[in-house]
């Protein structure tokens, strides 16, 4: 429990939290005591003091009957707050009813009701409020009903969404199975679970209601003279804005400040931080990437040819750091050395967090700020990845380096056709015509076994199945002249039956183009079967490196042995629990 409460405490204690709570307290005190303290002064007319400008005695000036505007603003707090709360109450109460009703209604009625709510939601709040205030006329109660009713669709929609999601949860299903009726489910399960989001939204809603109300009163459709609220005062003030601007600005400030406070409440009490907050708190600046090796870039060029023949990719003392929660840098990869020969298939195994993926990204030169890459050497076929890129190096990397990621749904751009995504690299870097690029793309798709490639080129990723998307990613790598395909868990997100096909496609593509492959996986059995050589990574360090066919026999490091021991085979004792890897990296049998 303590863990659940403390973030809320922390947010309440933050400067914003303290300001919000104090500010709202002041507004509430004013609502209660304002009319008592300043009521008589706000009503006191004085012919001698008519239409005065702002002064020490009357900070906001006086109106045409000589009444002090500041006193009227303070005393008007009660009416403004009460009307806003009343309207919010109407919206919340009826919104809950209309939002929950569809969940217990038969299908046809439910469709009709939610459809109606959706249609109403298309209309701006103010227009709905005007519609209702046309019915109930220009009066304070009329306006309160109008603002309240206008808010119902939004609340009903919110409730319906919340209720539907809660109704789908397992504990509700369980309750229904044991015979709890729909009403019981609503009262006992749905409402308590929806209460949090509802309260937060009610606060936002109250802010909106306050502003709408001020708007209606301002239009003369809300509170009528001699009653007054902030909107009414604003209306009276703006008529004399040349004479005494404070008479308009004063009530305006009251409206804005109260509205802002109510909005902030939702920020403080919302259970999940919003995305904006995450972005703000997330990452602090770090030194830019690419340092160390870049100095050597110029002098290294004569060696390039020699390099090219021997290795495709090379890294020495590769270190990768990311900003930590406290703003400092956290090193995630601690000095990895790796060379990949032409046509070689190298695997990296390790658990999540071992640094295998970011190592692969660094080898492809794709670590972005705020990540910081340092190394004694980091090259791809002679291109220094630590040096600033040139058009020549971009061309080479764009054509010779291919990526296949874990989730093919997110690694293909949903807004572009498969054809466009396949052809663009060769169009940009090789300057081939649209028609030729398309023909090549057709061949590439055919070579990974996608039927009817001509039609498929014009389709979007969402029209492809998961396995086909991954094969399209592989085909994308075959468009240029690949020398290295970095495949980061290429089969993890796929069905087991599709996994084999995709691996076969990758294997065939490798045989066809004689490209090297860097294959990242947490599955040591898969890696052992697919690769020539295997690197085992743990906590950002390569702990072992050996030929794939020697993996089962020669593994020395306890972590490697542990990984191997965790894979069940035909001889595994099925009566014993599967082994797990302990804190130290050694095998432990749960008993």
């Amino acid at each position, binding site marked *: 429990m303590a863990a659940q409460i403390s973030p809320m405490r922390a947010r309440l204690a933050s400067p914003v939290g303290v300001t919000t709570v104090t500010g709202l307290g002041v507004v509430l005190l004013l609502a209660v005591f304002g009319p008592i303290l300043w009521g008589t002064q706000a009503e006191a007319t004085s012919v001698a003091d008519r239409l005065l400008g702002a002064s020490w005695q009357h900070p906001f000036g006086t109106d045409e009957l000589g009444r002090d505007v500041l006193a009227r603003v303070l005393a008007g707090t009660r009416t403004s707050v009460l009307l806003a709360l009343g309207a919010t109450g109407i919206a919340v109460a009826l919104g809950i009813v209309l939002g929950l009703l569809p969940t217990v209604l038969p299908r046809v009625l439910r469709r009709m009701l939610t*459809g*109606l709510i959706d*249609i109403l939601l*298309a*209309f*701006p*709040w*103010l*227009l709905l409020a*005007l519609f209702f205030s*046309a*019915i*109930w*006329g*220009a009066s304070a109660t009329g306006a309160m009903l109008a603002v309240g009713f206008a808010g119902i669709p939004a609340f009903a929609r919110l409730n319906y969404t919340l209720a539907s999601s809660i109704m789908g949860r397992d504990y509700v299903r369980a309750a229904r199975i044991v015979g709890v009726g729909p009403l019981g489910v609503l009262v006992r399960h749905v409402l308590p679970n929806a209460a949090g989001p509802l309260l937060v939204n009610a606060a936002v809603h109250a*802010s909106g209601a306050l*502003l709408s109300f*001020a*708007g209606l009163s*301002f*239009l003369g*459709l809300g509170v009528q003279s001699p009653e007054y609220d902030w909107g009414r005062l*604003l209306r009276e003030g*703006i008529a004399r*804005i*040349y004479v005494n*601007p404070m008479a*308009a600005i004063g009530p305006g400030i009251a*409206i*804005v400040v109260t*509205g802002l406070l109510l*909005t902030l409440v939702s920020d403080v009490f919302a259970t999940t931080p919003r*995305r*904006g907050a995450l*972005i703000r708190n997330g*990452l*602090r*600046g770090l030194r830019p990437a690419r340092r160390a090796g870049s100095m050597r870039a110029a002098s290294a060029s004569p060696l390039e040819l020699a390099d090219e023949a021997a290795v495709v990719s090379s890294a020495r003392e590769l270190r990768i750091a990311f*900003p930590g929660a406290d703003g400092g840098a956290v090193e995630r990869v601690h000095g990895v050395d790796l060379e990949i020969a032409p046509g070689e298939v190298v695997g990296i195994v390790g658990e999540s967090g071992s640094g295998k993926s970011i190592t692969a*990204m660094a080898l*492809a030169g*794709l670590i*972005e*700020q705020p990540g910081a890459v340092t190394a004694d050497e980091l090259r791809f076929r002679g291109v220094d990845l630590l040096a600033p890129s040139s058009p020549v190096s*971009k*061309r080479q990397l*764009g054509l010779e380096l291919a*990526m296949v*990621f874990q989730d093919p749904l*997110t*690694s293909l*751009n*949903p*807004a*572009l056709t498969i054809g466009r*995504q396949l052809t*663009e*690299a060769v169009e*940009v870097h090789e300057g081939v015509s649209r028609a030729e690029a398309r023909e090549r793309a057709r061949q590439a798709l055919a070579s990974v076994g996608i039927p009817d490639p001509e039609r498929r080129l014009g389709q*979007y990723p969402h029209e492809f199945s998961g396995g086909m998307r991954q094969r399209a990613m592989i085909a994308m790598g075959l468009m240029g002249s690949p020398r290295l395909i970095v495949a980061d868990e290429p089969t993890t997100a796929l069905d087991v039956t599709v996994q084999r096909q995709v691996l076969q496609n990758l294997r065939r593509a490798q045989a066809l183009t004689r490209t090297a492959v860097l294959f990242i996986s947490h599955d040591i059995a898969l890696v052992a079967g697919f690769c020539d050589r295997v690197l085992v990574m743990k906590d950002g360090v390569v702990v072992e490196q050996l030929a794939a066919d020697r993996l089962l026999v020669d593994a020395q490091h306890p972590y490697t042995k542990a990984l191997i021991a965790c894979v069940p085979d035909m001889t595994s004792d099925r009566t014993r629990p599967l082994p797990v890897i302990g804190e130290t990296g050694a095998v432990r049998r749960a008993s």
Partner: protein
Amino acid sequence: MAVSLGIVVVATFAIIHLVPGDPVRAVLGPSAPAELVARTRSELGLDQPLLVQFWNYVVALVQGDLGTSLQTHRPVADTLAQRAPATLVLAGVSFVIAAVGALPIGLATAISVRSGRRRWLDLAASALVGLLIVVPNFLLAVGLVWLFAVQWHVLPVAGWGDPAQLVLPVLALAIGPMAYLARIVHVELLAVLDATYMTTARSKRLPSRLIYLRHALPNMLTSALTIGGLMLTGMVAGTVLIETIFAIPGLGTTIVSSITAKDYPMIQGVVLVYAAMVLALNLIVDLVLMSIDPRSSLAEG
């Protein structure tokens, strides 16, 4: 769409029947002679059965007849035709300004603060946007009038017809939505830039022009346009207040005065036009979205 339109027609028809008490008495006042009340009632057709009234209403509507104003005794349709252009110009110009302004601002702030650089700029932008979203346009209008018209005397305080008189109303209407849209563009772009397909695009080493315009932009346009559509309908509503503040002879000033005067035929007419504008805007946004995003279709939305 057809369903929405049907509901709108029924709702506008219903206004006069939902009025608590006798609408005709409400218009004419309690002391009006019974004979006048009866005559007005039959003029409005209120003495006929409800279904007949609705049928007559719909038939007249199809012929472009929206009834006769109780105040001016002129056809409602004429008044609307005369008042609508000002509202359309005001909302249209404001939307264009807001959209044209928001896109580059959002893109620029997102790219410049990406990955935690220039945190102060990010914070300052969020704070400013937060404030501009909370300040309703009619208060912004009051502030602008005070600053530009009262203090500096550079722009007219109210009126219609002269381009200079358009500046303040448009600013008041456009600034809030512009800030909001810029923020949406900002947040969406940051999310899109972190997507794996952007890494795929970078791995192709495309020029940054292509990376941003071809790969990033279409993916954030969907949400920006959805918000933009809501923004536009919100602006139509916002014109009501802005027209009142700046004394612009548009639909907003018309509906406010007719609600105060209980001129029901006129109210029904203006509500109908507003609703039709909102529905038309929604339809346009849906069509544009459909042409941009391959995944969305009218059937789903």
